[in-house]
């Protein structure tokens, strides 16, 4: 049996958790997948969550309930997962490779005295379990043995698409109180300061991302790009050089040390396409590159390209969109 940490948001089970639930089936085929939800589940999303879990073939949903779970602490969430994993003699504990998922699984692996594989993209063999995971910021892959009594692994964002199970289920719901200690509460969120205008999920969930790199030229070089973003109802994403130079804030960064995106369209403007950036954008369904250098990696790896200066091309695209809409 595989235990999967399920995170929820307004729309029910998050996209990356649904990916993890889908991926978990391959870790031990035929073994069954069970979900762990930590803390209260808002009544308005509860039916949706159970529907999504059923569609993904999840046999059971274990809901950890304790007043002290209200504020996030990685150790309490890990305690909730370890509780189910031990009771159910789980073969594996799986979560999405989000910052939170990786943090919680590091606690789980340490508590259970086993190895942990972060950012897994594929299962090579199941007996013994050998997985492939992203290393060097996605520039290389590592095959890793997970032969402890329980395998702990996080699934890299967009390693697979969520897919319905062959046989949908009606998940059995149980609530339980994980044994928490005072030590588990030592690193708990004391307060959350609502982001001023920052929606951290906006980039990862965006359908259209307009990307900007060094070719933007400076902090004043984003007007056309922001207008295009607006016209497409998308989100602006930038390369590391743009944030390092202070042209745009860090939360807009796409790549190894920024967000990993999987939009329908990624319009990469003035981005050379270093490996660290590619690691964050390679899951885009269609990539269009605009670049002065026809040999830039972003151009050669893209599906479509326009060769030239983004400061001439982007305003022309904006103008053409406005013309067709009027």
């Amino acid at each position: 049996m595989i235990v999967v940490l399920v995170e929820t948001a307004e729309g029910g089970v998050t996209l990356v958790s649904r990916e993890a639930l889908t991926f978990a089936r391959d870790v031990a085929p035929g073994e069954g997948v069970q979900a762990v939800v930590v803390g209260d589940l808002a009544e308005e999303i509860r039916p949706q969550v159970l529907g999504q879990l059923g569609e993904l073939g999840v046999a059971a949903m274990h809901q950890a309930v304790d007043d002290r779970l209200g504020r996030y602490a990685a150790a309490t969430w890990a305690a909730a997962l370890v509780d189910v994993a031990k009771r159910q003699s789980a073969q594996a504990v799986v979560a999405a490779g989000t910052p939170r998922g990786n943090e919680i699984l590091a606690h789980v692996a340490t508590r259970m005295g086993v190895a942990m594989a972060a950012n897994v993209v594929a299962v090579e063999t199941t007996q013994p379990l050998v997985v492939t995971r992203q290393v060097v910021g996605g520039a290389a892959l590592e095959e890793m043995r997970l032969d402890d009594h329980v395998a702990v692994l996080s699934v890299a964002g967009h390693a697979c698409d969520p897919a319905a199970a062959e046989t949908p289920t009606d998940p059995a719901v149980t609530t339980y109180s994980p044994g928490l200690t005072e030590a588990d509460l030592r690193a708990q969120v004391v307060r959350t300061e609502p982001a001023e205008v920052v929606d951290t999920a906006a980039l990862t969930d965006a359908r259209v991302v307009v990307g900007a790199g060094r070719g933007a030229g400076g902090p004043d070089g984003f007007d056309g790009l922001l207008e295009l973003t607006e016209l497409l109802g998308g989100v602006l994403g930038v390369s590391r050089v743009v944030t390092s130079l202070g042209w745009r804030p860090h939360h807009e960064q796409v790549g190894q040390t920024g967000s990993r995106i999987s939009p329908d369209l990624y319009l990469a403007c003035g981005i050379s396409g270093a490996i660290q950036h590619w690691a964050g954008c390679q899951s885009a369904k269609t990539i269009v590159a605009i670049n002065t250098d026809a040999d830039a990696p972003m151009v050669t790896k893209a599906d479509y390209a326009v060769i030239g200066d983004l400061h001439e091309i982007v305003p022309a695209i904006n103008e053409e969109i406005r013309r067709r809409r009027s």
Partner: protein
Amino acid sequence: MVDVLVCVKRVPDSSGQVLLSPDEQSVDARHVGFTTSPHEECAVELAIQVAAAAGGGATVLTVASVDATAQLRNAIAVGCTSAVLVEADPNRLGPADVAAEIAEVIRAHEAAGRRYDLVLLGNDAADTGDFQVGVRLGYALDRPVVTGIATCEVQGERVVARGEGPDGTEVFELDLPAVVTVSEGGVAPRYPSIPGRMKAKKTPVETRAAGVDPVGPARVRLKLMPEQPSSVQVLGEGPAAAPAVVDLLEQLGVLAR
């Protein structure tokens, strides 16, 4: 006074072409050189800021071959006050081994009267990307640990740490001593000064032999992504290509509203 220990890793500079060693166990960095993990450059910056604000010292530590002395000296050049090298072959250590080695140094220093109120690490190494050394260290020392922090400051007996969560900026307050792992984005690493570089040359590096019997990494082998032949379709050059781009946007269904 607050004394900080900051742990860094020497990693291959992966901004260029990544090659593998013939035994497929490590990245061949002969042609690209080495650097410090980006998250750890920010951890070093925070260590210097925290130590300076509280009148303490910032000690930089690495578990690596003697070549990583260069990364230790870079950290001294920007403001760290002392350095420790635990000499080991990093390719033969797993994340649990690295955490155990760091814990050994902390215990040994504490036995000699040098206490670290705060231990900072990078959230994940740029090469192995294990995401767990800091958490394992927290458990080994029985200290509170939080990961993925952008900024932190010491207030009295606590460290106040801020990081991005799913609903905004999450604030943590951990009693000292504590372990905090840092993600890039909250602070900008400073550049070394000329006097800093001079000092870095003169500061002795405490070198210790690795003392823990390693579990080793669970690595079978490294491999590179299969090289995909380019299948790019060039829509045109310059602004004249705009109609072709907008045709494509319509075709992809991203233009409708």
